[in-house]
């Protein structure tokens, strides 16, 4: 899949919850094909920050050639991205990485599990399923209700279930405790993105219930295109591989921590 380096214009940038921003960028020309689960490397509009920030593609609008990014503000880089104003230009590399495997595998009952800002790529994935007449189930977890982002948007494409650690929304507990998972026949494939402990718990559940599971990893990256070998994950078949190029999505069987 061809990768592009281009300046994109900020159309909108607004806070979602207390610590995330929704950044909408206009692609110049026709939006290239991209797969849910792929990401972009955004140049940070600040002289204090050297490296780009890898941000997953949250949603796309093929008619208006827009790309949305849901960005958790965690440091100087993401703070500067959150401060970008409409009309500003941000240099972007995209689409990067492999994306979820939904285009090459048949899925009837997908379960999309997200934790925190890990829900970001699952909206694009939900969009893609909805376009193919498949209604996905979303299961999101967070410490409290305010940390589960963009609920209404997800509900446009599928059914949304939640767990919170304080019980302020959905069922109290972690995603893997949700009653939805009592019947493993409900789903034929899981797509998960979120903190590593959550991914490990989801992978364990999937293994016990013989359900295929893909997880999207978030690693510290430099280049984003498989050149610097900084963002590696240890795999069972090939040892250290670049998350930016071989991933960020992996079937759990490939991961050393799963085996």
């Amino acid at each position, binding site marked *: 899949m061809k990768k592009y380096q281009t300046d994109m214009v900020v159309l909108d940038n607004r806070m979602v919850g207390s610590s995330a921003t929704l950044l909408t960028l206009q692609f110049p020309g026709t939006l290239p094909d991209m797969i849910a689960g792929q990401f972009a490397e955004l140049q940070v509009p600040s002289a204090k920050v050297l490296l780009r920030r890898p941000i997953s593609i949250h949603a796309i609008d093929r008619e208006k050639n827009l790309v949305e990014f849901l960005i958790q503000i965690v440091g100087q880089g993401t703070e500067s991205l959150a401060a970008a104003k409409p009309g500003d230009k941000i240099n972007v590399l995209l689409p990067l990485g492999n994306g979820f495997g939904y285009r090459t595998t048949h899925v009837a009952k997908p379960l999309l599990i997200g934790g925190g800002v890990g829900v970001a790529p699952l909206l694009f994935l939900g969009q893609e399923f909805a376009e193919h007449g498949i209604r996905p189930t979303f299961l999101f977890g967070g410490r409290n209700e305010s940390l589960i982002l963009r609920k209404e948007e997800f509900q446009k494409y599928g059914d949304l279930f939640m767990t919170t650690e304080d019980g302020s929304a959905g069922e109290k507990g972690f995603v893997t405790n949700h009653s939805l998972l009592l019947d493993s026949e409900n789903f034929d494939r899981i797509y998960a993105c979120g903190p590593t402990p959550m991914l490990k718990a989801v992978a364990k559940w999937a293994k016990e219930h013989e359900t295929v599971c893909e997880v999207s990893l978030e690693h510290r990256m430099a280049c984003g295109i498989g*050149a*610097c070998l900084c963002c590696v994950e240890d795999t069972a078949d090939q*040892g250290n591989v670049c998350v930016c190029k071989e991933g960020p999505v992996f079937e759990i069987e490939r991961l050393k921590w799963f085996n």
Partner: protein
Amino acid sequence: MVQLNTKIGSLELKNPVMTASGTFGYGTEYSDFMDISRLGAIIVKGTTLAPRQGNPYPRMAETPSGMLNAVGLQNKGVDYFVDHIYPEVRKIKTNIIVNVSGSCIDDYVQTAGIINTLDDIPAIELNISCPNVKQGGMAFGVKPESAAQVVSAVRKAYDKTLIVKLSPNVTDITEIARAVEGAGADSVSLINTMLGMAIDAERRKPILSTITGGMSGPAVKPVALRMVWQTAKAVKIPVIGLGGICSATDAIEFLLAGASAIQIGTANFIDPSISEKVIDGIADYLQRHGFNSVQDIIGALETN
């Protein structure tokens, strides 16, 4: 039209811009973003005799105006390079230089000997300066005696252009440069990364799995420039300058300091088409200042 071509030993470069080992993959990673055949040379990832898994994640930390890496020479070994990578990279219409690393002299010699048989690899860059492997690497490059020893052993097994990449983690880099020149090197490239460290205060832990790592990026440029200037005066062989080059102006500063060519490293991560912009920027500079050739500015620093 200004002349951009330059020479490193018997190696002809169409322009002085190379990409540094470990920052440009095998070249093709960048071909969506620029015409990689425009480069003077591409120096591919450090290659060792046996495959290496490198160090555990995390391997990278961003620092003010720079970054630390602790990749640890991850590569699939020289045999894999010969069978699977060489047939692809030899098609790229520019010089492909292989960076060679090892843990003992015999490793270096054997790897260089294998690469010597590849018609379309006109040069190697001997890495005696990697700070991220426990054995070898930088250990060879921090003493003139051991640096000379490994270079003269490789010299016997390798008859094309031999570039030696030097470590900045030494008291006097010119001493090492002179030692490898005496041992038969055709050129020296400097600087490799500077040994550094980053700490996560909240977790009270080092950020890198290896605790220390190699620092690169704009933050190291003044040190690199000083070392290139000193080394260019100390040796007769051509010097290749690198360390934090992010623009044509940065590259020109290294040429003025005495470098016959330059390498772009960390900047490739920030802007994957930067090396093409640097080539054009050097040509613009020469034109603007009325020079006919890049040779006119190599070592042309006016110090009085």
